[in-house]
């Protein structure tokens, strides 16, 4: 009954929980701590978990554990590593963030959300899946509204909660339909839907997931929440949380309506349309933003659309390329939000115009901005390029050349606003042209995190073979 693979399957989660408890205890008993101590503890702990799990937890085969509640497979493993990495970087960003940095709760909430995400990526049962989604969402609602005396942050928290709760409810209704008609909650075992039922389920579940990964037309919360939430949290929300949504999306739809089945053409068509709308809307609206956080919010809406292109192609290459895309995207977007967090901490503004002369004020930060935004654009030798090519390749392979062309036209729109931002950073001058007098000192956590991310983006972009191997091994379990 009990086997070692059961422990291995949830070892990262166990360790995350232990770390969370440690932070909680230290928060209470360690009164004379320095402002960053809890942050270092969290980041160091996450690094330890990341390394330990990478060596110990990697599964050889795909098995079901805990009576079919969880799957212990490569897909879960890859996503868990990604979430833990994202949480580690986020905790580095949080350290120097006012009101987040020295509060034990913020780290505990972050760790709890990470546990939830890890379970989301490996859940194999509808009940488990729902629990995991809620374990992720509730801490995120709190974190988004963490700065209680800031109106925008409070608004962000409330808005996220209301929209999120509604989307969860709708998705739960979809789950209940599945259980009601088939009598099972096991993702793999469920089969045999009638046509109207399948349509209903696809729509209901899609709404819930579309909210999570901010697909149009369920993206309305994203810009407001991204703008209002503390910037490190926004970074986490737009990367790890979105990747978790994609993990669920792939597992759920490929499990319920497998490729080659009767309903596969139907839901892929729905998603192809959603992807088109999402990419186009995200990019076009991003063009007119003057606030960098809102611009990145719309840009991350658009990126969800690109990644969805890979899902639509419904092949191993497709799912592998989505996973690769998400890896590259998590690194890139974290770097982008890290820059914003570091910058606004000194300057106190998120307006794009405030970034004038940034490359002269801090040369290194300017270079990181170059790397991050060019990677978002999809330029080599950065991760974004290869990721985009693979996703579009998957669409071409599936015979959906029109979708690849839509994606490509969209990335041209994206090029425009990303370059416009870089232009402000590199070309425009501050008033008075005395940038040297207004340096932007980077504190150590930011410097470490941004350096790690820049190198990671370059590494993924240049030596993409091994990374893609990992990504595609994640995909194999689903077919």
């Amino acid at each position: 009954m009990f086997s070692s693979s059961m422990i291995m399957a949830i070892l990262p989660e166990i360790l995350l929980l232990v770390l969370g408890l440690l932070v909680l205890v230290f928060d209470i008993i360690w009164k004379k701590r320095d402002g960053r101590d809890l942050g270092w503890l969290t980041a160091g702990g996450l690094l330890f978990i990341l390394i330990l799990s990478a060596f110990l937890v990697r599964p050889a085969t795909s098995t079901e554990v805990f009576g079919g509640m969880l799957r212990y497979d490569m897909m879960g493993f890859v996503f868990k590593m990604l979430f833990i990495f994202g949480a580690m970087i986020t905790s580095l960003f949080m350290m120097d963030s006012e009101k987040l940095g020295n509060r034990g709760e913020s780290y505990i909430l972050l760790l709890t959300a990470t546990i939830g995400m890890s379970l989301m990526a490996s859940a194999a049962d509808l009940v488990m899946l729902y629990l995991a989604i809620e374990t992720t969402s509730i801490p995120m609602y709190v974190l988004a509204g963490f700065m209680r005396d800031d109106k925008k942050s409070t608004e962000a928290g409330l808005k996220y909660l209301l929209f999120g709760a509604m989307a969860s409810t709708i998705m739960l209704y979809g789950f209940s339909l599945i259980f009601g008609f088939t009598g099972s909650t096991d993702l793999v075992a469920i089969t045999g839907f009638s046509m109207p039922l399948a349509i209903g389920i696809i729509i209901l579940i899609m709404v819930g997931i579309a909210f999570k990964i901010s697909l149009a037309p369920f993206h309305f919360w994203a810009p407001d929440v991204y703008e209002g939430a503390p910037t490190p949290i926004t970074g986490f929300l737009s990367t790890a949380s979105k990747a978790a949504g994609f993990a669920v999306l792939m597992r759920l739809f490929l499990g319920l309506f497998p490729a080659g089945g009767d309903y596969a053409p139907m839901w892929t068509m729905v998603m192809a349309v959603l992807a088109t709308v999402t990419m186009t809307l995200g990019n076009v609206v991003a063009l007119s933003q003057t606030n960098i956080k809102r611009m990145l919010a719309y840009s991350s809406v658009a990126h969800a659309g690109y990644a969805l292109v890979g899902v639509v192609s419904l092949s191993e290459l497709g799912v592998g390329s989505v996973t690769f895309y998400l890896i590259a995207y998590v690194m890139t977007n974290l770097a982008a939000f890290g820059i914003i967090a570091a910058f606004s901490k000194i300057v106190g503004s998120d307006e794009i115009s405030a970034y004038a002369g940034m490359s002269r004020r801090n040369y290194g930060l300017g270079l990181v901005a170059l790397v991050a935004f060019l990677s978002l654009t999809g330029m080599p030798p950065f991760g974004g390029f290869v990721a985009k090519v693979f996703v579009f390749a998957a669409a071409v392979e599936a015979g959906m050349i029109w979708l690849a062309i839509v994606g490509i036209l969209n990335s041209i729109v994206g090029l425009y606003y990303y370059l416009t931002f870089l232009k402000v950073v590199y070309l425009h001058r501050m008033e008075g042209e005395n940038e040297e007098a207004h340096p932007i000192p980077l504190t150590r956590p930011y410097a470490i995190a941004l350096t790690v991310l820049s190198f990671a983006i370059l590494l993924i972009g240049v030596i993409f073979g091994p990374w893609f191997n990992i990504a595609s091994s994640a995909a194999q379990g689903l077919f």
Partner: protein
Amino acid sequence: MTFPILSVIIFSPLVAALIILLMPADRKTEIRVAALVTATFALILSLWVYLSYDQAAAGYQFIEKYSWMPQFGISLHLGVDGISTPLVLLTGVVMFTGVIISWGIEDRPREFFAFLFLLASGVFGVFVALDLFMLFFFYEIAVFPMYLLIAIWGWVKTREYAAMKLTLYLFIGSVIALVGALAMYFESGMGTFNMLTLETANFSPEFQKIWFLPVFMGFAVLGGIWPFHNWSPDGHVAAPTAVSMFHAGVLMKLGAFAALRVGIMLLPVGAKEWSWLIFAFATVNVVYGAFIAMTQTDLKYMIGFSSVSHMGLVVLGFSTLTADGMTGAGVQMFSHGVMTALFFAATGMIYDRAHTRHIPELGGMMKPLPWVGTAFIVGGLVSMGMPGFSGFVAEFPIFMGVWQVTPWVAILAVISIVITAAYIMLAIRRTFFGEMPAAFEGHITPIKAIDKIALVLLAGLMIGLGMFPSIMVPMVATGVENVLRILGGA
């Protein structure tokens, strides 16, 4: 294990760019010296490749192959043939002279040279890549530094507009070609991006007819093909001197070269099907470009449109699908590259002193700037296709090739030479001879010794090639033979 010269050529500018980025910003002289050392190194290596290319053996040489992503058949597969070898040398020459010309850049030279080298690295990569994926990889690397180089160091009045326009045009072109490349990959069913293998894929004629135009035109945008040439003169004008040199001298060849390598060589049936259209577009390029150049009063705009006209000759040569035409086009790529680099270098030197490029405002520059004047005149003679200069060696075969296809087009295209002669002569007379306006008195300082090296190198290459065509023409012809073999075999 032989010395991996091609990968050293590609990656040494990249490594140098990283090192330069890490140097302290106030060490401007050290940064410049580091840049010059790198450029010299690249020039020597590319010269070495050029000289040791075995013409008797022909085919692809200096081949290197490292598996990069076996599951997709992507490898870092490098090699040069008779067409790309001169282009590698050209890149080395332009890189070297470009660094010399940019010696005086005071605003953030560190970033300038780093971005310039990133660009150079991408350019080398495209010329030597034998893998379709890697070709795109390097192609994009060559495109985006242009944006920064123009936007940051360009001419204040138009730089933001021109940089964005250029980047959008090139990006659109390249991604459209990319979809075509992906379609080829999956259509072939071979699971490889290796272009030498894809050449044997025998795509169905229907497939080739659909995809040839997007692929060819997507790349040819960078070659300045009409009606997508519009970005090019704006870009030339807005860019700082060294970047103009790179842009017109090397980057536009990138487009023509990739259009040949991917468009014509991988989709030969499509090329035969559509060659009439490309032929027509290129003819418009040649004639229209020359006419527009004649009406310009800004020296840089004049050279920019003359580039459009001359690049039209390159594409025209390719589209004839004849041995003469393609050989001429191959040589024209080199000749035009050196020529425009020289033109832009000379114009930059004048502008730095006179602070204007408006031809009617200039005059009498020959006296204070004899080196610049002489170099400009040499460039002008090349541009007109004067025998004894490289332009003749290149353009004459192109017209021969065109004659074989449609004689009256050859006659039409030759008109462009007359027009070229007219505007070049006019510009030389107005800029370098006559009275020097009094306002310039005392401002026109002599050029530095190091600038002379650049001018002499560029002018010497053009005269040398004009006098001794045998140093390049047979080499290009071996490359063209291979292209014709593919076209014939299809």
